[in-house]
């Protein structure tokens, strides 16, 4: 394999890893703090993609579309949290899994009825190519990767330097305890959910130019996002970052070797890791069944 192909593959992997990270973070946080599995994050991803499509069509700017997608996804997430999730926080994990799956499927139905089933293309905001070590790489993919890193830094700062972020970290350890201090955890939950939704929407918006948006797009990445979350360990931000880029590289470089197998490689990795550590690389064994 020549160097050019390799570098392209690595860049591709970095961008896809970035997308995975943005989505997996939301899932991980929601689980860590609220002990729910929020499959509906895949819906906010789709919403982000579709809003990006519509806004970029109407306003001519893809970046504006991405921003709008992020915002709308956050709003939808807020609505869902207030209406549905706040009633099921105390229940078992299975409950939230099924309910969020229902929201995801129902949401796909809504998308279908608004935009139809035909996949829509979204233009890439910038077609510039840079020369990296002798290879022409699309700048857009580098931007996606950079944005993911920026988000990671932002989340880190938020969780470690702001009081609300610290409250969330404390809540991930023991929510009841945080309540007992007098902190309104209900608001904390809502905030976390909105952040997760907005990040998923951002992922969808950024991913849209790289793929075509279609109603099933959420389901297509579902398995990968969850493999990332499982490998990294539910509830761990650092683990999510590492596993997102790991899976990104595997999928990307793997497909250069043998395409179909590359899609399955993350699965194999996940199985191996679960064999050794059933809660993922950095996952905690806090929860019983």
């Amino acid at each position: 394999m020549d160097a050019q192909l390799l570098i392209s593959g690595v860049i591709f992997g970095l961008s896809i890893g970035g997308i995975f990270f943005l989505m997996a973070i939301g899932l991980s946080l929601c689980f860590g703090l609220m002990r729910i599995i929020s499959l509906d994050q895949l819906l906010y991803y789709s919403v982000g993609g579709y809003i990006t499509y519509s806004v970029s069509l109407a306003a001519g700017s893809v970046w504006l579309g991405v921003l709008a997608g992020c915002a709308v996804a956050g709003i939808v997430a807020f609505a869902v949290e207030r209406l549905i999730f706040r009633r099921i926080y105390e229940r078992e994990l299975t409950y939230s899994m099924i309910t969020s799956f229902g929201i995801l499927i129902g949401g796909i139905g809504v998308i279908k009825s608004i935009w139809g089933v035909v996949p829509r293309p979204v233009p890439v905001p910038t077609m510039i190519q840079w020369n990296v070590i002798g290879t022409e790489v699309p700048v857009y993919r580098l931007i996606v990767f950079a944005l993911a890193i920026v988000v990671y830094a932002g989340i880190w700062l938020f969780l470690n330097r702001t009081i609300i972020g610290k409250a969330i970290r404390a809540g991930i350890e023991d929510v009841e305890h945080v309540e007992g201090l007098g902190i309104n955890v209900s608001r904390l939950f809502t905030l976390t959910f909105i952040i997760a939704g907005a990040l998923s929407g951002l992922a969808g918006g950024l991913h849209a130019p790289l793929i075509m948006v279609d109603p099933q797009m959420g389901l297509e990445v579902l398995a990968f996002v969850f493999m990332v979350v499982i490998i990294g360990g539910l509830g761990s931000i650092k683990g999510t970052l590492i596993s997102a880029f790991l899976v990104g590289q595997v999928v990307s470089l793997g497909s250069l070797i043998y395409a179909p197998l590359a899609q399955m490689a993350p699965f194999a990795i996940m199985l191996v890791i679960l064999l050794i550590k059933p809660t993922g690389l950095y996952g905690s064994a806090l929860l019983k069944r």
Partner: protein
Amino acid sequence: MSMAPDNEPPQSGDILCVSGLNVAYGEARVLFDIDMRVGPRQIVACVGRNGAGKTTLLKSIAGFLKPLAGAVTSGTTNLVGQPSYDIARLGIKYVPQDKKVFSDLTVAENLELGSYATKDYNWDPVTTYFPKLKVLMHRKAGYLSGGERQMLMIGRALLGSPQVLLIDEPTEGLAPSIVTHLRNVFSELSKNTALVIVEQNLPLVCAISSKVYAIKEGRVVAELADPESIKPEICERFL
């Protein structure tokens, strides 16, 4: 010397009044018709064997459990049905057992959370009672010893000048010197705050409490309010 549960009507002076409290976990009933009264600046002890329901009682008062029936009031405010964070804001703070602190946060950050919740950023009272905490400010709470954790938890609960502290088994597993320190702290605290202490350490609570409730299998089997009767041997008899 009164042995039987009190049947007097609640006095408006009470900082905390529990009447007819019945609590269950699903189908299993844990507390039966609990009556308890705590006056301001009073130290009240709840003693009983493991599983008697003492923690359940504190948790119910603090709003973590919804009772089947009964009333919990503080002055004229009804506490039943309110979320635990609102009850904490009212000045009734629960200090749980097992010395659980937020291990990933530093001591200072733990206190910061308490300040954020109560808007009380004056840590002087805390460091006055527990000077050791000053030294440990930047250590991650997960690395503290049991005694230090207990100090952190109580210190943090002091922020916002609470009216009642519900303290669950504070001296469990602690060295005698620390237990003595805590005992003195409790005595000092009660000059401003009412304390409800759940304890297995009978000599300790008998030394500082002005009222002792003995709980057995979910019921109050004795209420000792007479200084003469608050002795470990007498408590033992009821358990």
